[in-house]
Every structure is written in structure tokens, then in C-alpha cells.
């Protein structure tokens, strides 16, 4: 007899942190940030707050509708067609995102340590992990992330501390980067980094304190913003601006510099270990969320039916970009779209839902 697993908002927050932070390893995501030059860290913090501000009303409203998910909110708002459209857009975004990350990750493995290994081999290994993760579902993923998060944080903080000796604080100047106006104008694009946050809305139905979904969002966005900002600060201090923008794999580049006696130097391969693990968690959770959205919109009994086709789609998308440069560029170009789908669409649904609720109450 299978019973539903339920978990608290802190566990879901841990999953959110892991999934969002796994992106720090990928070139495209920090690539967005060089737009803010020496003030990249500030842009990240502001973007984190903005992401939460956009997510918060959605979290509150999703917790109120029966079913507690983005799709059920859409169905409540505009019936089945709206639900299907929402699933197509939001799930599609997540699949596209997974595809590109899959490509980047496998290219990264080949670039960083295994120059003679075919890239598809690295991709197949990752795909198997992602498939298993997505089939396992959000509950297992939450439990896994909850146990893995402390390790991930420890490793990241270790890398940052290990690299701190290389940095010079004065490289962080000027504090405003491109200047206050441009900084504020460029920040919204950075919010795209937080778009996998959508997966929290797929996990909400299993939350035993649903009204606290916002807490998971808060911890995930603000926690990750702080972590990203810390990485960014150390990165700018170590690789001063014009140089830093040429560094393709930021955390990896930092890990390469760590010196701690004979044993703790040249340890970036060890870091690779945690990166692969985090990426598997990230893609597994995101792909699962996408499958769950489709399944709910179409009315499948289980998300598992949708996993394989979606993974195949993501795998195909991963093969589309002809080179790593273009994979990154496609990802960066996606930023405004991601922002619109991940934050704008749910926000719009909430507004419409509230207005309709008021109208029907008034009537």
C-alpha cells in the first residue's frame, strides 16, 4: 500500500536551493551577469528579491486553490484550455531549459576533464540519471536534496574560502558597475536565473503546510541570491572584470586556484563530482515538474507517462545547438522569455483569478 509522502516547507526549500544553485556551475547562467560588470553580485541580490516578490503572490494563491498547483490554479481561472496552455508554456520552458543545460553539462565534462571521451557518452550518463530522477518524482528528489544540500553548501563555501586569498577587494570597484541606472535596467534579465523555481509549484501539492509555500520560495530565492552573490564577489575579486567575462566555467575556475598544502590543491575534479550530482538533481526535479504539469493538464493519472517523451524532447533540444558557444547564447537569449513564462504567466493567472473571484463574490 503506497502512501503519499508529505514534507514541510523547509524540505521543499532545500530542494529549491539545490536546484537553483546547481546552475552556478553552468557557464550560461553566470554569463548573463557580466552585463552588470563589477556589480554583478548586486544585480544577483536585487534579482533574487525581485524573483521572490513575483513568486510570493503566486505561492499564496496556489496554496488556496484545491490541488495546490500551478495547473489547478490555471484550471480554476480559465478552465481546461487555460490549464493546457499553461502546461505547454511553463512545461515547455522547463524542457527547453533542461535540454540546454544537458548540452552544456556534457560539453563541460568533455572540456574540463575528459578530452578524448565522446560528448554523447557524457550526455547518455547524465540522461540516465535525469530519467531516474524524474521518474522517482518530486518526493524522492526533495528528500535527496535535503540530505545533499549541506554537502553542496560545504563544498561551495570551501571553494570560496580556499580562493579568497587570491582576490583583491579593490577589484570590486566601482561598486555600481555600469552605473545605478543601467544596473537597475539590467537586473530584470538576471531574474531569468530563478526561472526553474517553477518546479516548486509542482511540489506544492505534497506540502503538509501548504500555506507556507511562500517560505520555500523565500528561502530558495533569497538563499540562492546570497550564494550566487558570494560566488560572484569572490569571482570578481579573483578574476577582475574584463578577464572574468572570458572565464567560461566560473566555479570551476575558482576551484582550480585553491591551494591548501600539498593535498588540497588541484582539487577541481573533486568538485566535478558534486557538480554532476547537483546537475542530476537539478535536471531531475525540473523535468519531473514539467512532466507533472503536462500530466495534470491532460489528466494522466501519473506523471511517469510523460517523463520519457519529455526527456526525449530535451535530449533532442540538447543536440540542436551546433557548438557550446551557441548553446550558451541560446540560453542567454531565452532570458526575457523565461522571465515572462516563469514569473509573468503565473502572476497574470493570479491576478485574473483574484479578479474573477471578486466578481463572482460580488455577483
Amino acid at each position, binding site marked *: *500500500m*503506497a*502512501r*503519499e*509522502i*508529505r*514534507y*514541510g516547507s523547509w524540505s521543499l526549500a532545500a530542494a529549491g536551493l539545490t536546484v537553483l544553485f546547481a546552475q552556478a556551475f553552468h557557464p550560461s547562467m553566470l554569463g548573463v551577469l557580466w552585463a552588470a560588470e563589477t556589480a554583478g553580485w548586486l544585480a544577483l541580490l536585487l534579482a533574487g528579491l525581485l524573483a521572490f516578490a513575483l513568486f510570493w503572490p503566486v505561492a499564496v494563491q496556489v496554496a488556496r486553490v484545491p490541488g495546490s498547483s500551478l495547473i489547478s490554479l490555471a484550471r480554476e481561472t480559465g478552465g481546461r484550455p487555460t490549464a493546457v496552455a499553461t502546461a505547454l508554456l511553463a512545461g515547455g520552458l522547463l524542457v527547453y531549459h533542461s535540454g540546454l543545460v544537458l548540452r552544456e553539462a556534457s560539453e563541460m*565534462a568533455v572540456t574540463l*576533464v*575528459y578530452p578524448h*571521451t565522446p560528448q554523447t*557518452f*557524457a550526455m547518455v*550518463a*547524465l540522461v*540516465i*540519471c535525469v530519467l*531516474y*530522477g524524474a521518474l*522517482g*518524482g518530486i*518526493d*524522492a*528528489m526533495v*528528500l*535527496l536534496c*535535503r*540530505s*545533499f544540500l549541506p554537502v553542496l553548501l560545504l563544498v561551495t563555501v570551501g571553494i570560496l574560502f580556499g580562493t579568497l586569498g587570491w582576490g583583491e577587494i579593490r577589484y570590486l570597484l566601482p561598486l555600481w558597475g555600469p552605473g545605478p541606472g543601467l544596473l537597475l535596467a539590467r537586473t530584470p534579465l538576471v531574474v531569468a536565473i530563478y526561472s526553474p523555481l517553477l518546479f516548486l509549484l509542482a511540489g506544492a501539492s505534497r506540502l*503538509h503546510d501548504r500555506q507556507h509555500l511562500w517560505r520555500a520560495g523565500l528561502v530558495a530565492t533569497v538563499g540562492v541570491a546570497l550564494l550566487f552573490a558570494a560566488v560572484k564577489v569572490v569571482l570578481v575579486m579573483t578574476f577582475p572584470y574584463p578577464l572574468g567575462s572570458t572565464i567560461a566555467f566560473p566555479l570551476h575556475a575558482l576551484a582550480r586556484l585553491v591551494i591548501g598544502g*600539498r*593535498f588540497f590543491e*588541484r*582539487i577541481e*575534479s*573533486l568538485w*566535478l*563530482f*558534486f*557538480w*554532476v*550530482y547537483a546537475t*542530476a*538533481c537539478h535536471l*531531475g526535479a525540473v523535468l519531473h515538474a514539467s512532466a507533472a504539469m503536462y500530466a495534470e493538464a491532460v489528466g494522466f493519472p501519473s506523471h511517469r507517462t510523460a517523463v520519457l517523451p519529455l526527456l526525449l524532447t530535451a535530449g533532442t533540444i540538447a543536440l540542436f545547438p551546433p557548438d557550446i558557444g551557441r548553446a550558451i547564447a541560446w540560453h542567454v537569449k531565452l532570458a526575457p522569455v523565461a522571465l515572462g513564462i516563469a514569473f509573468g504567466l503565473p502572476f497574470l493567472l493570479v491576478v485574473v483569478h483574484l479578479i474573477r473571484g471578486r466578481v463572482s463574490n460580488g455577483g
Partner: protein
Amino acid sequence: MPIPPTLESVRDAIAASLHWPNNLGVELQPVHPAEPQGVEMLLLYIQGLADEELIRLRVLEPVSRFSCQDGRLTPARIRTALHSPRVRLEGDFDAVIEGVLKGAAALFVQGGADAVMVEIGSPATRTTGGVTSEQPHMDVFGTELIDNLALVRQRLSDPALIAEPHSLPRQRGTAAVLFLEGRADPEVVAQVRAWVERRGGEEAMRRGLAAGIRGKVGLLPERLSSKWPDHVATMLDTGYVVVMIDRVYHAYIAPVTATAMLAGAFDAVQIRPNSHLLRLVRFTLCVLVLIGSSSLVALMNYHHEMIPAPFLMALVSIRESAPLPILGSVLALEAFQEMMREAGFHLPGRFAAGAALIAGKILILILVQGGVIGALEGAVSVGVAFATLGLLNYELVYMLRPLRFAMILGAGAFGFFGMATILFLISMYLAQSKSYGVPFFGEPGIHYAAPGGISSRTQGGRTHGP
């Protein structure tokens, strides 16, 4: 709470607080004095905790001889009649229950404001043969279910501890399902109960440990086993459900979780931070068993830069003439390790397994000296073997041992990347695994209960046990 006025209400109060008669070992029997005839008293004690022979001598016989001419049977008179410094009067019902849980017997009289408490001696116990150097002196379970229950009750004297009796007619035995009410998840209790009744209990009684812990095919056992009352008491206290069976000296613990697997039998006698640290040490040992040899393969085949340079140069010169590639020698050593361990189990004598292991180490040393394998492979393999010895929980060791071969193959094929993928698959498998509806990475009861389930967080402040 005062003693209820009538014997009927006493019976009800005992049923409410000790779950009598549905609680194995809780004995409530009528007693009749010689005079006045037809008057009934109630005797309450816990089997195993209070020695029945002593009860007969000190309570039943004096009471059956007792006669009261004027027909006014009061607790004070009975106390006088029992005539012993171990007899006292107790007016508080909760204190009576507490005393009974500590091994006393209580006599209730119709209309009496007090109960007569008789302190009875402690039961006989079976202990480990002599005190070993490291382990504290501890009791282990015997074959009598009632005595085993008493061993647990001695350590956890909580009225909420229920031992539900289940008869096993084919084996002519009894099984008890133990849990702390309010702490254990009712649904887990129901499922464990279902297992015992669905012939699981009989199987476990007939076929022993294998049927007791193994269930479906998979890496994880379905239940854990323990022969230590202290261990069982701690597990009950943290919300696990325990099954104890007649003539079986293992208790079975459900659900199987990571915390339960890492908990050792002796954690109960450690002070708090120490027991947490021990758990951390065991976790480190698990990690070592899993990734020890495979990291060596990954380092020596893919990530040479991580080996400190001056050491690497020495390493190269040692491996210069080694006949096997590193993956081959590590796999061979690990397989050899398994064989020696297996051989050790079949040797007679208490230290045979250890002796076989040591013999294996000596052989490895000779291989290293002869230049057949590198010193580093030898050292790591010996380290991993000792790490498996450090893990007390056999179910855990049996799970980890085959998995480390998967890790070695992963490392051989793809370095740390391969190890990370295999490790992700293993941990994903564990994260998905549920035992009695409780996820392996979760805690028993509570957070995973369906809405409306009991939450342990609201149950704080309850005191139990010495």
C-alpha cells in the same frame, strides 16, 4: 488522579492507561481473601518485571489466608496482614501505574481510597558472556517473550508502551507488536500488524532472521533486527515499531530508515553529543566503504593532478613494474577481500573471521612486497575492509559491499563523473525506497503521515523512563 472507588472503575482506568487486556504482560487478576467470602480484590502487575513466584509467596498466599472478622476489608488491614517493609499504601492512581511499570504489584480493594503496593524483586536476565573490553555490559534478549518484553519495559517504563499480542497458531507461539502510542505512526503500526498476522510472524518464527528482515527483492531489508533491549528501547522511543516473537531472540524493527541503520546498539548508553558523533563516524565509514577503492581508481586513472606531485613521482616508480592495471588490481583485491571474509565465516571459533581477515592482510602485504600490486592499492583495500568491520549493522554492510563494485566500475569507466552518476543512482534508489510507507531518508511516523495523522511535535513534554 485518585484511586477509582469501585473495582469496575479501576478496571476501566487500567484499560485506559495500560491498554489492558490488549497489552501483553500486563496482568490483572481477581484475588479472594479467606474471609469475608465472595469479596473480590484486583491484583495488577507486569509479567516478567515482577517475579510471579514472589507474587505467589508474598501476595497471593498471605491474602488467601487473610480473614477479616468484621467484614470490613480495607487496604490498611491488608497491609498489616502482608506484614513486610516492602508493602505500602498509595493513593494516587498514576503513581500506582508508575510503580507497577517499575516492577511492583498493586492490590485494589473495593471502595478503598488507597492501593496496596508490594515491591517485588527484579527478574532474571541473560547477559553477554563476560564484559568485553570496549562494549558496556549489556543485557541481550533470551528466548522467553515475556522476559524479553520485561527487558524492554525496564528501559522504557512508559504507560504508552503497548505490546499487542498476536497468536501464531501454527507455530503455537505468540508475537508482540510493540510501539509507543502517540509517537509511532498509527499507519505503520497497522501495516506491521498486518505483516505479523499475514503469516509473517509465523515465517519469522519458523525460518528465523532471514524471514524476519528480508521482504521484497531490493537492496534494503524490510525490517532491521536487534538483540539488544537498550537498542530496541531507544528505537521505540523515537517512534519505531518493534516485533518480538516467542522463542526468537531477535527483535525486528520497522520501518527501515537511514537513521535506524546508522544507529548502533550501544548508542543508548552514550551521552547525547557522543552518540551523534558516533553516527557521523558510521556515516563516514559508509562513505569510505562505498568510495574508498573507487576513488583510488578514479585518481590513478583519470585525475592524476590531484595526487600530490612529489608523492606521485614515488608512486609511478612503484607501479613501474606492476603487472596489473590499477582497475584490475583493485577489483582483484576487493574480490579477494570478499573471499577471505566468506572463508572466515565458515571457520570455527570466535575470532576465526578476524583471523581470516588478518591472514588476508598479510597476503596483501606479501603481494605488495613482491611488486605484484602497488602499495597504495593494498593500503586502501585494507582500509576499506576495516571500515566495513567498523559498521555494526550487518544489514547496512551487506547493502554496501556489492555497491562498491558498481562504484569501482563507474570510476574505471569515467572517473569521478562515473562515480557521481552511480552514486546519484544509488542515492536516488534509496530516496525512493519506502519501508512501511516511510521514506528511507525520512523519520518514522509523523511528518509523512496522511493529513490528520498525529504529529509528534505537538506531543512534546511527555516524560518516560528513568
